[in-house]
């Protein structure tokens, strides 16, 4: 009804003149917006600001908006059927055997990657970074994609996991394998502690509280000098061992190292490959865990809650507890990824856990498709590989991602590859 009233108030412009007029109006607005920020640039000239002008940029921008608006108007107008066809032909993930085979092929390739002839240290390192983001994306997907809660401070749990491992290992000499569950547990506890007061309320509050929480964790990490060494960070964090076999060239006396045990020549690449396979198995475990959870009553409750909270309440689901479980599980997975990050880098500082990182992970989930495990992998690959292609892309990365998030919400809210269908259906739905 509201829509009807609105459309009466603002009739759609028809015909080419109407579209030209709309495009001109858009160009006019773009001109106004561009003048102060694009056209004029303040530059620091030895402590005093000076002004530079860039009217050519303004002209290009305004022209682009004009053409874009005109093309957009035509696409929603006379050529709408073309647009609709293009929309239909966008890849909707095929279900069933085909996608399953593809997924297994991809996993096989991922396992084999370090042993392929073209693989070198750079590629394996890149793969490790990619898998960290994939794991974080899958973790956040539980919160955002399945339970429909917007978490803007996911990096906080990542940080908690990383610092938990680093501090336990440095202060108590505990090994990576003992610390890993603790890191996850601690992150989950933080998640529960944060979620408990907020999840009773509407979803918007959670978004802003997590946003604040992410920042607060960073501020605390910077300022709690005695524990975290502040901005200097924690260095020489112990590396993980292969079932008790360290990867050092010269291990401590009495300890056999990996290459000695297997009678290999020492190579620093052993550790790189081991770390890669470690995060691969962690990520695959995460995936399996999440896929299984989705079929449990709990997972179904998440998806139901995402669609309609009031209906869920009427059916006797306790929304707070269900949300809290999703939030805690997401936090735990973030904590695991954080512990791995710490042991891989060997050095962590608050600089690694900024809002940009949270935004990046959220962008992966949103662009890949909320709830889609494959989409997360593709989005993460896109995001990690893009800056490797060229520095220019790295600079524009977040700009593109911000704009893409808006466009995706408008045109394909389920994400590029997402499906909003529930995991489980009644009857013969599947």
């Amino acid at each position, binding site marked *: 009804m509201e829509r009807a009233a609105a459309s009466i108030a603002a009739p759609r412009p028809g015909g080419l003149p109407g579209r030209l007029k709309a495009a001109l109006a858009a160009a006019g607005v773009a001109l106004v917006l561009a003048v102060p920020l694009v056209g004029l640039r303040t530059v620091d000239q030895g402590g005093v600001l000076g002004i530079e002008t860039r009217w050519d940029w303004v002209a290009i921008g305004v022209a682009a908006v004009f053409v874009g608006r005109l093309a957009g108007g035509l696409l929603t107008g006379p050529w709408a059927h073309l647009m609709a066809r293009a929309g239909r032909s966008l890849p909707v993930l095929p279900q069933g055997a085909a996608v399953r085979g593809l997924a297994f092929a991809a996993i096989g390739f991922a396992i084999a990657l370090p042993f392929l002839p073209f693989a070198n240290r750079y590629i394996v390192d890149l793969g490790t970074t990619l898998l960290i983001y994939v794991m974080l994306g899958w973790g956040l997907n539980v919160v955002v994609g399945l339970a429909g809660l917007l978490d803007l401070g996911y990096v906080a749990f990542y940080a908690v996991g990383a610092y938990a491992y680093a501090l336990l290992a440095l202060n108590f000499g505990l090994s990576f394998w003992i610390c890993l569950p603790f890191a996850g547990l601690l992150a989950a506890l933080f998640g529960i502690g944060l979620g408990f007061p907020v999840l009773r309320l509407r*979803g918007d509050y959670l978004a802003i509280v997590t946003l604040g929480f992410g920042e607060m964790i960073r501020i605390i990490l910077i300022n709690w000098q005695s524990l975290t060494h502040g901005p200097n960070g924690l260095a020489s964090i112990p590396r993980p061992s292969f079932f008790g076999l360290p990867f050092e060239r010269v291990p401590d006396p009495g300890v056999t190292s990996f290459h000695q045990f297997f009678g290999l020549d020492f190579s620093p690449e052993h550790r790189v490959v081991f770390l890669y396979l470690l995060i691969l198995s962690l990520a695959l475990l995460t995936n399996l865990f999440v896929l299984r959870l989705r079929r449990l009553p709990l997972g179904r409750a998440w998806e139901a809650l995402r669609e309609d909270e009031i209906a869920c309440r009427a059916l006797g689901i306790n929304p707070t507890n269900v949300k809290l479980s999703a939030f805690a599980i997401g936090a735990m997975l973030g904590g695991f990824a954080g512990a791995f990050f710490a042991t891989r880098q060997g050095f962590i500082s608050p600089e690694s856990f900024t809002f940009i990182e949270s935004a990046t992970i959220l962008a992966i989930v949103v662009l890949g498709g909320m709830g889609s495990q494959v989409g997360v992998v593709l989005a993460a690959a896109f995001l990690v590989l893009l800056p490797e292609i060229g520095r220019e892309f790295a600079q524009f990365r977040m700009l593109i991602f911000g704009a893409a998030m*808006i466009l995706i919400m408008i045109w394909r809210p389920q994400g590029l590859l997402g499906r909003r269908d529930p995991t489980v259906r009644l009857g013969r739905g599947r």
Partner: protein
Amino acid sequence: MEYFLQQLVNGLTLGAIYGLIALGYTMVYGIIGMINFAHGEIYMIGAFVAVTTFTLLGALGISFVPLALVVVLLVSVGFTAAYGWTIERVAYRPLRGAPRLAPLISAIGMSIFLQNYVQLLQGARVKPLPPVIRGGFELLHANRFSVQLSYIQCFIIVLTVILIAIFTLVIARTRLGRAQRACEQDRTMAALLGVDVDRTISLTFVIGAALAAVAGMMVTMYYGVIDFFIGFLAGLKAFTAAVLGGIGSLPGAMLGGLLIGLVEAFYSAYFSIEYKDVAAFSILVLVLIFRPSGLLGRPEVEKV
């Protein structure tokens, strides 16, 4: 005592700035029920436009301060309001009626976009601005400690009071204010009764952006440095202020802003300056636990 008074003055100044930003949050929340995450960025843009205009005026050789202030105020408000209008038109209007999460994600996308947009166009370094208004009154002098009220603080507080007065009049007396309040209560009913809902929402964003622009200009003059990231923390604190006052309540937003400003000033003065941002955030969590409807807000009932 003197120290206390000084912090009171500083806190009120800060609170005026937060309150102006908080008004934008609370108005938008009241009318379309969503948090406009990009609001902090609007404030940041207001600050950048103000710096650019000040520099431009300096380059043109205009040194008469009141004239410069009026020009900067008008320019900053005008351009920033245009940004506010465009943001609503581009990122929020197409999503009216979409599932809850969609406008929130669109808003955060807009916020990320604007931050990087300004960073790329204006550079990542801080922008220093020489003080425009110098000097001040000495309110009190005792025990070798003097309580200062600088002219810039006067300017901020007086301008805020004037703006609040105008704003209250607009909301209470004008046709636009009436439409705005009607849409807040029931958008569908307002539309049926002939209120142009889309236009009212657009104007709400314009007013919110204008107030944020003034806050941005004030902060530029008060601190003398800005960068592309200032919208993040300021937005968070202003949102806290809006929640503290009761989200959707206009006097509440101003009250909340003042309280947050005071808390921040006193916390950094008496406890630790490093954790002043944590203090504001703790207030947000505490309010959400104990009084989610805020000081002046009405409890929210969600209907099917």
